[in-house]
């Protein structure tokens, strides 16, 4: 299948291992990945901070770049796909652009979060990965409650050779990131992060994984500050790892 990669702005600029792993994984599974180089950002930060007017050109740009790019699009981010699927058409309609809203809806139906693409579209749970580490999984809020990915990421992780999966207590509670919330309400965000980190540490996992780079930036930033020794690794990186080539720490 020809798949267009939404690298996400954060993934492109600061966390390139997640989109790289997505490419390597999908190519290993025999698919063709294209990267429309004009892509920038889906506009999620603007939408969720209330700047819907500023988000409108970003939505338009995203739709223009991806509409003809491939059969389907994939992003290694539950929240970016959540924005594309549940907010782009709303932003377009609010801006009075019904044509854009329809195009956004069409693209939204063909845009998938990574675990959705693998399990629902490509019909695979064993991706041939090898990752000999003790791992706990944080189901990010937008994957869980906006996209309803359910246990798809866990089904993928359970098939990874060598991986020991430990259950995260209170897994479904938000980590406290929330985009600009992390800065606007930094103290409440930190209080939520403290509880999430305590739960991660209680699993004695080496690695905390999730399907969203931004939540991992927050959780990982806290774990690093504590010198906890626990790493955060995107789900795509674990699934892309093989016995020959483990994604470097």
């Amino acid at each position: 299948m020809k798949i267009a990669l939404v690298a996400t702005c954060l993934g492109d600029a600061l966390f390139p291992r997640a989109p790289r792993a997505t490419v390597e994984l999908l190519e290993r599974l025999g698919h063709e990945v294209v990267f429309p180089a004009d892509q920038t950002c889906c506009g999620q930060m603007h939408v969720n901070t209330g700047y819907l007017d500023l988000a409108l050109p970003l939505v338009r740009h995203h739709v223009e770049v991806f509409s003809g790019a491939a059969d389907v699009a994939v992003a290694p981010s539950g929240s970016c796909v959540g924005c594309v699927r549940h907010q782009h058409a709303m932003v377009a309609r609010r801006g009075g652009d019904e044509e854009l809203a329809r195009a956004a809806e069409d693209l939204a139906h063909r845009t998938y979060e990574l675990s959705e693409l693998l399990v629902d579209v490509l019909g695979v749970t064993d991706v041939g990965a090898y990752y000999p580490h003790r791992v706990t999984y944080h189901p990010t809020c937008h994957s869980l409650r906006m996209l309803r990915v359910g246990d798809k990421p866990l089904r993928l992780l359970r098939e990874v050779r060598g991986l020991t999966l430990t259950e995260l207590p209170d897994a479904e509670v938000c980590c406290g990131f929330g985009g600009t919330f992390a800065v606007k309400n930094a103290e409440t965000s930190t209080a939520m992060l403290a509880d999430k980190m305590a739960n991660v540490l209680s699993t004695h996992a080496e690695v905390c994984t999730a399907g969203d780079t931004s939540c991992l930036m927050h959780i990982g930033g806290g774990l690093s500050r504590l010198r906890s020794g626990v790493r955060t690794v995107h789900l795509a990186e674990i699934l892309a790892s093989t016995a020959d080539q483990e994604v470097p720490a």
Partner: protein
Amino acid sequence: MTDPGVTDLGVTDLGMPTVASDPYGHLRGSEPFPVAARRSLADTQLRQNLGHATRTIRAKRAGVVAEVDDWEELRRAGEGIKADVMARLPELLVQFEEAVTARGGVVHWARDAVEANRIVVDLVRGTGAQEVVKVKSMATQETGLNEALGEAGIAALETDLAELIVQLSDDRPSHFLVPAIHRNRSEIRDIFLREMPDVDPELTDEPRLLAMAARAHLRRKFLSARVGISGVNFAVADTGTISVVESEGNGRMCLTLPDTLITVMGVEKIVPTWSDLEVFLQLLPRSSTGERMNPYTSTWSGVTPGDGPQTFHLVLLDNGRSNVLASPDGRQALHCIRCSACLNVCPVYERAGGHAYGSVYPGPIGAVLTPQLTGIQGTDDVSASLPYASTLCGACFDACPVRIDIPHLLVQQRAAAVDAHTRPTTQDVAMRAAAAAMSSPGRFSLVERALKLGRLIGRSGRIRSVPGPGAAAWFGARDMPTPPAETFRQWWARTRGPSS
């Protein structure tokens, strides 16, 4: 670009005020959420009390909701009934008024809090009573009725146990259902010992004994009160019936013993027919207290000769609700049945507590209802901080028994807050710069190159802090990785060649 009326301060065609009056500051707090939250986050006792209480009630709710096979259908039914009510609220209110009047009640219409308070004060004065007993009521908390009565020399006694605790300690409620959720039982014991005359000085913090002390304290008041004041859970349009749902029996006392009953009701509390109660009386107790069935459900229609209050006044309160109703999306906030399930599942509420919201309506629903009732007036309106008091995690929507899309309303109210800016803020400038950078691939690449300067300040792959006001909020508790040597698009170009 918001819906007309959300931020406009004019007057609609009906001559109704478009936003709430708030004479005692019970809707619009005195400080922004992050400032108030800083205080509560540092309160160890409060954090313990709230964590314990919300965890307990979440587990209880989850248990009884899971028992109901058709819970999702019930939620959809509740949503549908409420949407229908909002679509034809004016005609249903008129129908309801006629039914109440036909059964011997007297209906008053109050445009705002000030008017509602004046009506109630005048009615109580007319009876000559110096004291009233109250059933727990969010509408009268909203209007500050107790303060208004106090200024008129009339003592208002809260009879709900938790409201009594709040009133005795000169505190403010922090939860719809459990107004003293921020207190634990040893604090309650101390309040009773300090504030209740005639209380047994040997009182312990055993819940049964605390309840007995409150019972003895209240019983004398019930038997002597001439006027009762209540709110409303549901009002049936076709029969003129009002329903109050409570757990302690104090409400039943207030609704039946006094000669005069005065009920204050937000106009959104209507359901069309008696049989619609079937849906809500299943949804509400399981969502709120985690009970299968509500213990005390009182219903009455007007006046019944020889049985209960012989004079019944009903005050229909707008106080900004017409403004909320005018917003096609925002009006969903009026579907709320005040179960507080969204508060109990909200990770922000659990940590910051109800007082941080500054409004009698705290938590996720309060964060979307309060700014719509008050309107957002200018850049520094504290109501504008409420919709940002959420990570948009969505737990509130999943818990809501009438499927209010609170995350969507939070985004909508954030947009209303941005539109209300009367001068550019630091955030406005940052967002405009970010939008400009993201609007073209060329500019985005330049930003990526600039970010690489961050590699100069990192140590061991981590950045511990950077200068700048916004940065401090992030780096107070979190590191950042140093920017990568190669962005994704550079890796792609290097390994895959020029891109599509």
